[in-house]
């Protein structure tokens, strides 16, 4: 978000994730919050003397988790973008810590499509593109099943047509 004349900045990638991704992120947040809150709540119910010290953090955690579950997915939905050109895969993620990743087609080694149990529920899939670098994997989240399959197929086709040594 640099401003001013003569500056250079990254433009956002062209494609947005599917609208259902918001729900998926929300459920993830809620599950993440529910686990510790449930443990604290049960302990608080069982151990009477420490009840206050167990239930207060549980309440704080629950409130924080709910707030995150409401706000972050909306924020992410605005910042998560992806784009595939003939030369490269370009993805932007994150809200508080923005991240842009670029992997050139000629260096792509594998294209994986993953559908976790929660993603199945929402009809979503994640496409992961890896390069020879241990730290260069690019993930495209929140695609519909059809879009993911189509994208994986397209990536595989382009990478096969693009010659290049992956190392």
């Amino acid at each position: 978000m640099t401003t001013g004349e003569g500056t250079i900045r990254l433009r956002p990638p062209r494609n947005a994730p599917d609208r259902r991704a918001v729900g998926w992120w929300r459920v993830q947040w809620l599950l993440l919050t529910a686990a510790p809150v449930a443990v604290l709540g049960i302990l608080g119910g069982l151990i009477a003397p420490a009840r206050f010290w167990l239930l207060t953090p549980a309440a704080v955690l629950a409130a924080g988790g709910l707030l995150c579950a409401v706000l972050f997915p909306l924020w992410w939905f605005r910042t998560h973008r992806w784009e595939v050109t003939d030369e490269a895969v370009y993805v932007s993620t994150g809200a508080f810590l923005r991240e842009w990743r670029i992997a050139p087609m000629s260096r792509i080694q594998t294209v994986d499509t993953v559908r976790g149990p929660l993603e199945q529920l929402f009809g979503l899939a994640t496409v992961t593109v890896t390069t020879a670098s241990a730290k260069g994997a690019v993930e495209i989240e929140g695609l519909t099943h059809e879009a993911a399959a189509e994208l994986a197929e397209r990536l595989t086709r382009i990478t096969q047509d693009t010659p290049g040594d992956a190392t």
Partner: protein
Amino acid sequence: MSTAADSGADWRRLHRRTVLVTALVTAGVAVGAAVPVTVALSGRFGYATAVGWALAGAVLLIGCAAAGDHVRWRRTRYRVGAERVDLHTGLLLVKRRSLARERIRSVDLTAHPLLRILGLVSVRIGTGEHTGGDSTLELDPVSRAEGERLRRDLLDRAVADVPGTHRDGQLATLDPRWIRYAPLSFATPLLGGAAAGGVMQVSDWVGAQAEVIHWIADRLRDTPLVWTIVVLAGAALVAGVIGALGLWIEMWWNYRLEREPGGTLRVRRGLFTSRSLSVEERRLRGVDLVEPLGIRLAGAARVDAIATGLTKDEERAADHNTLLPAAPRALADTIAAEVLREPATPTGAPLTAHPRAARGRRLRRALVAALAPVLIQVLLGVLLTPVLLWTALGCAVVLLPVAVALALDAYRSLGHALSGAYLVTRSGSVRRSTAALERAGVIGWTVKQSWFQSRAGLLSVTATTAAGGGAYTAHDTDASEGLAFAADAVPGLLEPFLERGRSGR
């Protein structure tokens, strides 16, 4: 696995003496175990019987180990064909591993003292792929001559002569004076601590821990507490220095860095355990000039290789890619240039400094890190006991200047540049690293910007690569300048995704 092209090559076996090696190693273990057992048993059954039992047990153990290794030797075959290297091993579960010769990146020879006496080496052939254990092939052991032959054959490829005046043959040999940098490493206090811990542990085993503590307490009975601490810390430090010197001698004795015809860099070193590490130059993507704080203050630096396909073993990674141990800075620069076949090392190029906002970020971080323990102690001191207020004051007096000095130094270390075919990034204070990465070796970019960085107009640009650590980062660059740097480093890759000269938020 046997293709027509390979049928000409013959199958070979590991060296016969592997059985002897296993028997001797097991004998060592058996003796170690037999002594306490004999002592324990002789109390109940008498001396002769105890020795008899212990001997019988040892013979059985050694016999089993030797027989097992004999079977392994019988069942293990390898073959170096025109296209592939095959290894078949295993008794019940037969493992067959086959590496394409063109994928082989490194051939390392290692020999511990026993292997050296018997004229053997163990060979690791690596392809450097990231997919688990299937990428290396280990021949343990073969004769030294066979190891050398494998290394030569597998890495010798008809490479077109690279233009340039850079020489083949010996690039660097050990200068014994470099040993003065050994105690400056961070290993010294650790080794000192380990020595103290070791004394306690061993005395605990023989049940004399209390006596040792008493003995030390006796010696220091009349000394005040402060001096006691100073003396003990001094003793640990001396032990650490001796340990560091010994470790350095064992690791770096006979060190030689050579360029062999065919484009391979080879490092040989080791006093007791001799190691030979070879890196194909084709796989070299740059060098990393590493300067840990103590070594940097002494005007020295270490040179690491940034190469694809070096062994990724966690425990051995530390020194596996080191081309030159800590040596005077000028020599390190020369070696870096020689290794890269450049007239001058790219790591010495003038670097673009980062904006002052980066300094503020480092100072703030240092203050938080230094003040956190102080604040906790103040809080506890107010609640519990005033003694903690004094220790808090002491902490603040010691920690704050150190933290600020390190932060300012870290800011001064920051820098990045393009130098010929290389992109250079430098960062770190306690361990300053100046990495020169070949621009052609960059296989992607990651740009990160936290909310704080965004407000300060900064971002971090990371070049990902298949070699070395996998990613090299220019931390906290100016937002525009960092992106321009990345765009220039690899033409065409980042360009389509940039917006230039637009204003507005």
